[in-house]
Each structure stands twice: as C-alpha cells, then as structure tokens.
C-alpha cells in the first residue's frame, strides 16, 4: 500500500519532499502529496516535529519520568486527570500504564528545582493523585528511534570490489 510506504518514509525523515518520496517509491509527486493530505485529514499524521540533541545546546535542560498513582473517577476513569495533565506544556509524553502505577509522564524543565516544584505544586495537588515517584534522566541514548548519543561509524573501508 502506497499509504504505508509514504508513512514509513515520513517516519524515517519527515523532511523528504513529495518529489523525493515519489522518486523513491516510483509514484508521481502529486500522488504522494494527495496521500499525505489524506493522512493529515484522517488525523493519522498528527504533526511534524524536530528531534533535538539537547545536550549539544548550551541551555540547561533536566528531564524526569514521573509515575503517578491516582484514584480513577466514576464514569470518567483516568481521562479526566489525563486531560488536565496533558495541558501542561512541560509534559512531553503521557501514558496510562498497566502494573504498579497508573500514569507515566515525561517532563522537561530548566532545573531540578523546576521539576520538584512542578511535582509538588501541579501534580501532587490534583485531588485524585495518591502518590508520585520522580526519576531523573541521567543520559539520553536513543529518542524516537534515533541514536542520539553514540555516533555509529562506517567501518567499511577495506574492500571496494
């Protein structure tokens, strides 16, 4: 299916032009454009963002994964609190989990203190939150399927036949 192939290419590099994708897949560029428009319309493609190696930037950034135990609300389950947490711009990812806790979120701020404040003021105060556990990120190795730490070198230097 061309739809899957276009998606696969975009997931690899969302900056490929319609023309480039068309060439790689052997279909006309305007056909690719139509497929992408359709994927966007159907909400299958939700957006395009950049993957930044924050460690390379001079600015400070601290990230943490926070586990939350919460009391689900009658009828609404976990959606009500999830919707609230989704609104905070510091929260990058939010998931409902199976296992020992309920919600997991990934958050990034400038300092450790910012994260502590966020947990204390924004999360712990939500009335359905029972407990929180904060795990700070020490090093980023891989993000969104990309190796952001080790740079792989091409070792194929010896034979050119």
């Amino acid at each position: 299916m061309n739809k899957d192939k276009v998606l696969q290419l975009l997931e690899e590099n969302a900056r490929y032009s319609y023309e480039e994708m068309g060439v790689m897949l052997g279909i006309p560029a305007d056909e690719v454009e139509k497929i992408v428009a359709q994927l966007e319309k159907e909400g299958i493609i939700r957006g395009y963002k950049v993957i930044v190696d924050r460690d390379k930037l001079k600015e400070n950034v601290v990230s943490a994964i926070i586990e939350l135990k919460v009391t689900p609300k009658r009828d609404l389950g976990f959606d009500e609190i999830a919707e609230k947490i989704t609104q905070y711009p510091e929260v990058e990812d939010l998931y409902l989990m199976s296992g020992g806790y309920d919600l997991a979120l990934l958050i990034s701020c400038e300092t450790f203190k910012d994260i502590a404040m966020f947990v204390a003021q924004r999360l712990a105060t939500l009335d359905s939150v029972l407990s929180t556990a904060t795990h700070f990120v020490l090093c980023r190795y891989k993000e969104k399927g990309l190796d952001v730490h080790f740079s792989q070198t091409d070792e194929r230097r010896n034979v050119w036949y």
Partner: protein
Amino acid sequence: MDYSKILSDRVQEIKPSGIRKYFDIANSMEDVIALGVGEPDFKTPWIVRAAAIDTLEKGKTSYTSNSGLELLRKAIAHYLSSKFGVEYDPEKEVVVTVGGSEGIDICIRALLNPGDEVLIVEPCYVAYAPIIELTGGKVVPIPTKAENHFRLTPEELRAHITDKTKLLILPYPNNPTGGVMRREHLEAIAEVLRDTDIMVLSDEIYAELTYNGRHVSFAAIPGMKERTILVNGFSKAFSMTGWRLGYACGPAPVIAQMTKIHQFAIMCAPTTSQHAAVEALRRCEENIQSMVQEYDRRRRYIVDGFNKLGLDCFEPEGAFYIFPSIQSTGMTSDEFCEKLLYSKRVAVVPGTAFGASGEGFVRVSYSYSIKHIQEALRRIGEFLQELRG
C-alpha cells in the same frame, strides 16, 4: 635477494587492482563521501549473530565435514529450490565455501587445463581474470554495451566462442553495472550453448538484490543445469561479508573435484559462520525483504539524481551499483574519478577497473544512507557546474 626472480611468474604478471589507487587516496583524506564500497551497510540480522554466539557458548568450535555442515547443505538446497526452482542434492551437489570468492576459485581451478579459454562478460567483477591466469587459462573478454543494459547477447557470445572455449562466466546481477538478465535473455544464451560442451560459472551472489521482478537462475533454464556451476553466498543477501561464507552447486563430478581442492586448500568453511548461516536461511526472509526495499528506494533516488545531473544512467535492476556514463564531461573514467576525489572529496570507481569496456563510465555504490547519497549528489552537482563553467 632479487625476489622478482624467485616469485612465480604467473603471480607477478597479475596486474594490481585498478581500484587500489583511489582507495588509498580516499582513505588518506578527511571528510570524504565515499560511494566506493561493494558491501552492504546493514549489520548482519541480529538473530543470525545471536545464533553464532549461541554455538560459541555451546563450544561448537571444531571443523565441520569438508563440504560443510549437513544441516547447512540441506538448508541451501531447500532455499535454492524454493526461491529459484533449482534442485540440488545436498549430499553430492553442494559445497560450502569461504565466500562466493572461493567458489569462483575452485570452480575455475577444477575445470581448466592450460590454454583453455574462458569467456568473461565485461565489465565485471575483478576476481575472475586473475584466477583464470593463475590456472594457465586464457581470458577472453566479451565487452557488453550500455545500450543493452550491459547484458550479454547471443550474438556477442557466439562471436567469441572457439574450439578452445571451456567456460563462460555469467555474472548477473552484475557488479559493476547493476545489469540483470531476465529469463528471455538467459534463454537466448542457453540456445547458443545447448549443443556445445561449454560450462557456465553463474555468479549469482546478488540474486536476492533484484528489483522490478525476481531473479532467474541460469541453472533453472531447461537443459542448463548439467553445465552450470552456481555460485552464491551470504555476503550480499544477508549482509554477512565478514563471515566469509558462500557455496557452489553443480553436477556431482564437478563438485567432487572442487571439494577435493577445497579439502586441501581450506579444510572447511568457518564453523561459526556455517551455524549462523543455517539460521539466516531459515529465519531471515523478512530481513532480506526490508533490506531489498531500502536498496530499491536508494536505487530509484540515485538513478534519478544522476540523470538530473546530466550523467546518463540506464535503470540498473540488480545489485547495489549504478553505472552512469560520464562521457558528456569529455573526461576519461580515470580523470573523472581523480578530479572528483581531489576537488569535491567524493569517491567513485572508474569503470575501467572492471574491464576496458568500462571506459566512459563510473561505478557508484548505493549501499549508503539516503542522507549520504544526498550529500554526494550535491557535491557532484557542484563539480559538474564548475566543469561546465
């Protein structure tokens, strides 16, 4: 001591590979965008590596039988039968070798008497001619043409056959041109050979890397199996170059003699690699398909890129090379490669490294990421612009 008087004349007469020069220059430079290598950029699939580790942990580190693990020979026979419809008896018609390279070597050595003529389709892989010469055979190149997508035509073949012709080396999908022979092309070749005693070494190492359709083995053409030595291996299809594993299949009397050479020169192919290869044949179909899909994208991308730059390129349907013409620049292949390397630090290989008929062409490997290819195309574009002023 004057070693040139001591060393074998035949060995000393072998010309060093034409690739070496660029290779040395490129490897001494910084920031080179190489498009030179002839091996996959993918790692060997993890399950294959894991299988190898497992056998090492279990201590399976002794020699195997000379012709290779029985399990592997059976897996090879099954693979060739289900993929290409050719049937071989794993007992008598298969030998596991140290890469396709050894298969080529022992096939030529087992067949040739001094003075026998071997037809080689040029441009082609660099290993055939030296081995033929070492064996005392005579290399008879058959130049092929870009307008035929570098396929061997029956007329070209017929024109080079003499009563000394012992062997034809048929290397498709082709390194360096990327050309393939479809069933009808192979049938036309078979027609010429049918009433002769000419043997065929069919180097099908790139069989899995065939685009726009499936590879057809020469041994699958009616009547050809009895004269064909099929050479294949794990390097390209399974991204296993460093494991040094391949195989040759053919008529039992030929394989028996080849195995005799193998037994004395090699003993057996690397044991760990043989165990890993069983796993590769059994469980890697999906890995192959996703690698082929990725090569295919790069292939379309780079062919389009070269054509847009004005370096005409027919659509290569196999392996991972394109063979664009650089005649429009007025330079020889050698000049083009040298200038491009010094001025833009892009390394490609002159077509002449693969035979005289490669003049006017360069071999460009697309066994690199799209990002790498994009940068190479950008630099080559600049180079051409500066040339054209």
